[in-house]
């Protein structure tokens, strides 16, 4: 179970570029839950994911996972509990190393790296079996460098790597945004398979309303570093793409209103 308590993050504090990326965010994610995070650009959804992953430390608040307080854990220590897929398909794999070596690194996620062989016959066999389920014909190319594969293939492998040892939490950061529609579709289907088979607790950021409606059992909408809507249960069941768009329109209209109202108030009362 993931518990995020009142976390705050300000980038470049005290400078003209100051950004309050997260403002007092609370979020509880039950085991096996699949939450989609939606939001406009700069709403703080990726920042929320990075705060949980440990890319930076939050200014205030607490993050706990599996009952452990991980607020001050460095990123590589949190990796024992967290699997991650990045937006950039090139971020999740080491291009000059073979498919097998990349998977072997993932098979040791969170464990201390000793002088045992990275690869052995058993592990190779398991790799072939799991890669075959991707239906990409990669099972016979275990010794090819990952850099020779397409973005979609690399992202599928990253997904396989992130979930190789079932993590307590899987973080997907717009992981199909940089792919062509066909590969994106393939990676989404694979994500669904893995999440439902492993009953995988998942936090997924996306721009796509369609993905938000089709996937997951809960939708969170973020704006300006805060959670504005948290749709779950029956309310989540009824939601359609049009409803989500309407809510975003709402946000936008309020956005446009705010400065003009403030200006009017200033003129009348100051």
């Amino acid at each position, binding site marked *: 179970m993931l518990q995020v308590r009142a976390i705050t993050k300000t980038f470049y504090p005290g400078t003209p570029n100051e950004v309050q990326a997260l403002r007092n965010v609370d979020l509880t994610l039950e085991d096996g839950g699949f939450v989609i995070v939606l939001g406009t650009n700069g709403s703080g959804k990726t920042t929320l994911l990075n705060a949980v*992953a440990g890319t930076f430390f939050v200014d205030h608040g607490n993050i706990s996972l599996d009952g452990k307080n991980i607020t001050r854990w*460095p*990123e*590589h*220590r949190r*990796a*024992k509990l967290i*699997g*991650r897929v*990045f937006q950039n398909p*090139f*971020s*999740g*794999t*080491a*291009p*000059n*190393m073979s498919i097998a*070596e*990349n998977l*072997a*690194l*993932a098979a*040791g*996620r*969170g*464990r201390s*790296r*000793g*002088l*045992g*062989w*990275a*690869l052995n016959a058993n592990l190779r066999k398991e790799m072939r079996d799991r890669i075959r389920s991707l239906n990409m014909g990669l099972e016979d190319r275990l010794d090819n460098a990952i850099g020779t594969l397409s973005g979609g293939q690399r992202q599928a492998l990253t997904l396989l*790597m*992130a979930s190789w040892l079932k993590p307590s939490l899987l973080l997907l950061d717009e992981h199909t945004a940089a792919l062509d529609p066909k590969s994106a579709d393939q990676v989404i289907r694979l994500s669904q398979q893995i999440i439902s088979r492993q009953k995988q607790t998942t936090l997924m950021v996306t721009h796509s309303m369609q993905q938000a409606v089709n996937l997951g059992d809960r939708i969170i909408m973020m704006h300006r570093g805060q959670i504005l809507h948290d749709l779950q249960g029956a309310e989540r069941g009824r939601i359609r793409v049009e409803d989500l768009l309407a809510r975003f329109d709402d946000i936008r209209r309020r956005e446009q209103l705010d400065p003009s109202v403030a200006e009017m108030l200033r003129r009348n009362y100051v």
Partner: protein
Amino acid sequence: MTLLIGAMTIGLILSLLALGVYLSFRIFNFPDITAEGSITLGAALSAILLVKHVNPVLATAAGFVAGALAGSLTGVLHTKFKIHGLLSGILVMTALYSVNLHVMGKSNVPLLSETTLLTYVEKMTVKIFGGAARFSAFGWEINRQDATVLVAALFGISVIGFVLYLFFRTNLGTSMRATGDNPSMIRALGVSVDAMIILGLALSNGLIALSGALLAQYQGFADVQMGIGMVVWGLASVIIGEALVGVSSLGLLIVGAVMGSILFRLLVAIALRWGLNPNDLKLITAFFVFSALVLPGFLKKFKLRTG
């Protein structure tokens, strides 16, 4: 022939330098200048220990350990104190110059009358070949002593190269390679990138210092100036090696670095024999590395423009 054998032996000894440079520059993508100080450190420490009649194997190993410490210091400066990689290396290299002078107590320590690894090889030569000081092979008169040293160096370097190759296939070794290849990926898989960089630089500089310790024993002295220009020489060897084997599998690249170092030394020996002014050696090497770095990109541009 003596000249060629000598050049090949130095090439083999300096191939440890090439492997160290390959590790930091190519695998970690870390421009580590510490090498110029750590190769001297390895030579200085092992030389002074030999003068004090310490067992040559121990003295050589001490050189390796000292270099590894120097390398890890550079790693700590870079990762824990967030100093730019190049500057971390320069700081440690500069500090090592004084350290080396202190270790040796003077700027040059001769080893001609000491028991060194070379003495062991000499004893072995007598045991195997008996009396004759020269033998002829392929129509050349060959100094028996030189030949055995060459064979011993080849054997030693092969063992070290093979162990290194095996190491890079362990969990720790693959994690190190991945750290250089894609740090954000390996961090997400639970490996401390800082620890890998510190460990990798320790290994790299340990190899380089070992190279220095062996070089001091082979040439019969350690000198505080001997490290100057070594990084560029190491890089030249790595570049030649890559040209020889192509950028392909790990094992071939290790073999390539060794072959590159030998070939580089042979080229230098031949150039000097043809009357190249030794003072110009570093200038020419720097120019060679410059063209090796720039030429491929330039040729590509040229091809695009014409074709």
